[in-house]
């Protein structure tokens, strides 16, 4: 396509694109390269005059089993959260796209997007209030049920999953909604007229056709959850040590920026490998 544009068009393209690329260069590329540079240092230059270049920070990941254990734990968390987001989000998106029309759809949409408008820290702290012992949830349940219920959800892995699912559910619903809405209603009608059951329609028509949206949503959830640190720290209690929290510690508490940067890039590499491994599926879904 590049060969087809005339010089005038090329100039116009350049003017239109350069603000975005300039912004990306300044806001993403430069800090990221600085971090990459830090990850190969023995010490931060301002802290130690005798700093040098090393691979030790990356070797640390390989020699200390703590980091790989935590990375595995974080990956497992991300898989769990993604699974529940899809499980809850798919029916919701399906109903929004196919069953509800008009104003009530707008109202429901608003409810889906509403969490986006509040600060994520506020959302997590409100979950802390709901989940803690004798908190809002326990009181509500005990108000309805005749017997005493002790959920004790706060400071457990479950609490972390609940908080994260709530935070990331809108991504899945929105991408799935777009994918499902693009499915032609006539296809469903045709299938139904030929006697397909609802389950068959879901399995043979809706699921395959909405797969790109589903995978896009899953990636949008999976990637940030692997590196999440705020939610586990607040909701997870002593179970809340994950790969993300250890990276945060390196930057905030221990002041070992080089190690923190190295751990971050290892995470980035692992995520890229996972996405690359999934790319054949992603490509097939798109065609």
């Amino acid at each position, binding site marked *: 396509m590049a060969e087809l544009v005339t010089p005038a068009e090329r100039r116009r393209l350049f003017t239109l694109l350069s603000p975005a690329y300039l912004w990306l260069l300044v806001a993403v590329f430069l800090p990221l390269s600085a971090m990459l540079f830090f990850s190969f240092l023995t010490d931060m230059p301002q*802290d130690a005059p005798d700093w040098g270049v090393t691979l030790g920070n990356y070797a640390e990941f390989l020699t200390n089993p703590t980091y790989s254990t935590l990375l595995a734990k974080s990956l497992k968390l991300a898989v769990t959260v993604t699974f529940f987001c899809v499980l809850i989000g798919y029916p919701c998106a399906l109903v929004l796209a196919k069953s509800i029309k008009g104003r009530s759809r707008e109202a429901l949409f608003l409810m889906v997007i509403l969490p986006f408008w509040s600060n994520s820290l506020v959302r997590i702290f409100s979950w802390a209030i709901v989940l803690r*012992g004798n908190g809002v949830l326990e009181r509500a349940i005990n108000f309805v049920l005749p017997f005493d219920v002790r959920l004790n959800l706060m400071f457990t892995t479950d609490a972390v999953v609940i908080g994260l699912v709530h935070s990331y559910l809108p991504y899945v619903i929105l991408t799935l909604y777009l994918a499902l809405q693009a499915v032609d209603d006539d296809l469903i009608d045709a299938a139904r007229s030929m006697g397909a059951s609802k389950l068959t329609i879901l399995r043979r028509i809706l699921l395959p056709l909405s797969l790109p949206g589903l995978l896009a949503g899953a990636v949008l959830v999976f990637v940030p959850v692997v590196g999440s640190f705020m939610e586990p720290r607040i909701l997870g209690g*002593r179970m809340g040590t994950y790969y993300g929290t250890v990276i945060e510690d390196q930057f905030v508490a221990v002041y070992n920026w080089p190690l923190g940067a190295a751990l971050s890039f290892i995470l980035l590499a692992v995520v890229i490998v996972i996405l690359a491994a999934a790319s054949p599926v992603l490509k097939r879904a798109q065609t």
Partner: protein
Amino acid sequence: MKSAFLLSLSALALSASGALADEIRVLNWQGYGTDLDWSLKAFEEATGHTVVHEYFNSEQEMLTKMRTNPGAYDVVLVNAIYNPQATEEGLLAPIDTSALENYAGIPADFAESDLVTEGGEVYGVPWTWGVTSFAVNTQVFDPVPDTLDVLWDPAHAGRVSIRDDAVEAMQIGALATGQGINDIQDLDAVKAKLEALMPQVRTFWGSENDWNQYMAAGEFDVATYWSGSAARSAAMGLPVEFVVPKEGAIGWLDSLTIPATSEHKEAAAQFIDWMIDPEFYVKWDAEGAPASANADAAAALDETAFNRRVLGDPEVAARVQFQTPVDDDTRQQYLEIWQALKAAQ
């Protein structure tokens, strides 16, 4: 006495080299004594100097800020175990203690400690000290326990908390296994002891604010804590009592220092003198303060005040082991043990 003191301070201010009204920039933890509004207002009235604050969240951050912003600070709070390192790096200026009226009240143990002096020069004015141990919810405990073992008591499983800090956790473990906090011989014993503590833990706390919220929400029966913070929490109305157990406790000393690059050294010295003034301390203590390093200030407290009643008791003070500097390798080793323990949960 007050007016005489104020007069002397203003005289000092007038004699100061022309710079009558300096802006002193203080680097400290937030909400830690130097930034009390009433005190700063009185200080400004007395000396004409205004005080602005910048805060740090960890000692490493404090050191980095001093290294990277020369001239930006006039008074910096330095935990005494970081004093030798900061002095060696040339970050601190020697302090002329003869200009400090209240310096004489600081006992030799603190004032002449190796931590805050170097080659006969004073690089830090001992300001406050305190104890890291634990505090209990008095609604749960009657009587208040006198042993560290209560953290490991199965009766309080899931209602215990410790701070998410490798060195502090290891030193608590050292006390519980009967070892010296500054020279832990049997690391495996400490590790095993902490491993046994983990299932007891509800969550880790990070800041005083965390601690107060969890305690107020009834999440903790017993949690490690700092003596000064416990006094503040109790002053806020929380049902807590600080314990210095029979196994001993971790003592720390905070000093006020003047960076070598400060451009307002005389005003900074005046502010430090203000901070170690017994009159200031008594008012601060009413709001919850750590123990003052100035013996005159401690003696000026009401007899019922925690900082005089408990920490002023020589028998209690004898149980306190004061921290000495932890070198980077040991710190790293502690951190690895602590992270491995947390990751295994």
